[in-house]
């Protein structure tokens, strides 16, 4: 387990960083600038991202009856090149089931531009926040779990973006 040292300064810095990356990632996903000369930094797994993960969810056209859109991009760390054909697993607590239930899970593949989009049932708040879960876990790149939060429970779409580094 990692030890996190909290004091006012690094809390503010971290909070500011989270806000900034959050806004940049949400606002202009296609135009995220490389953080440094080394190029685009890989996405870190979010805390709680892997909760209620089920290995090997099937690739589906739609999870359940749909009505809600989960979308995003998958790119390579460094040069930011779009990664086609990558399997992204998606799950959430929805109007059709709880997070851990099999019918709440599904997977999709990215297109030639590294974009993915999967219809699923409406996400509703669980544990105090309306949020979804996404995983890249195919092995070619390092596994990443994301846990994006909806700004409002009334929203009918959610985005998450992956920047992967070789495993």
């Amino acid at each position, binding site marked *: 387990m990692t030890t996190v040292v909290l004091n006012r300064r690094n809390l503010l810095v971290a909070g500011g960083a989270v806000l900034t990356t959050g806004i940049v990632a949400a606002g202009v996903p296609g135009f995220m600038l490389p953080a440094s000369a080394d190029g685009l930094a890989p996405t870190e797994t979010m805390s709680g991202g892997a909760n209620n993960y089920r290995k090997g969810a099937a690739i589906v056209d739609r999870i359940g009856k749909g009505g809600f859109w989960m979308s995003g991009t998958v790119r390579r760390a460094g040069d930011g090149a779009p990664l086609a054909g990558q399997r992204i697993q998606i799950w959430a607590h929805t109007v059709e089931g709880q997070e851990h239930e099999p019918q709440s899970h599904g997977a999709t593949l990215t297109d030639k531009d590294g974009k993915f989009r999967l219809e699923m049932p409406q996400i509703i*708040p669980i544990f105090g926040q309306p949020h979804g879960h996404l995983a890249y876990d195919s092995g070619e790149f390092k596994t990443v779990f994301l846990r994006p939060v909806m700004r409002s429970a009334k929203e009918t779409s959610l985005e998450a973006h992956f920047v992967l580094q070789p495993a």
Partner: protein
Amino acid sequence: MILIWVALAVAIGVPVALAATSEQLAWRGPVYILAGFAGIVALGLVLVQPLLIGGYLAPLSAYRGRRAHHWIGGALVLAVAIHVAGLWITSPPDMIDALTYTSPTPFSPFGVTAMWAIFLVALLAFLRRRLELRPRTWRFIHTPLAIVIVVGSVVHCLLIEGTMETISKAALCAAVLAATVKVMVDLQVWRKRRTLRGESVARQ
């Protein structure tokens, strides 16, 4: 006299009733629903506690008020235990994240901290005689923990997006804060005193 009881019933009853009409309930299992309501009830009990100890709930005498404060404290421990156990059953990894302070949800550490403060106060209250804690020592221990409980509970509750209706939730939280500030001002908890209201301590 009757007014304070009506106000108390409204402050706790309305948020509970409105939460019971939440559309979120349709998508939740019975254990999750029970856990959520245990949390709301716990917040209601946190409101009752300062009112009892301040003697504002007439016609309860100071002695009876304190007795009730002890029993409500026990009920609060039970409500929090049901809240945590129910959420654990609903989603074990999320509850473990919360209890280990590694949760992504900003409200979790506030709730967990308030929980430990509640358990600690209850344990010390239970052992108070055996430990022979003097009233002054007890107050020195209980007051800061009470503040942790109140602030932790209120922040925890306000940041959660769940079954509670926003305005009634905010009103209940405001009432909890107001009652706590009032009792602390009235009893002047920051002053060093040898005797506590309604309690006789042998002169040294």
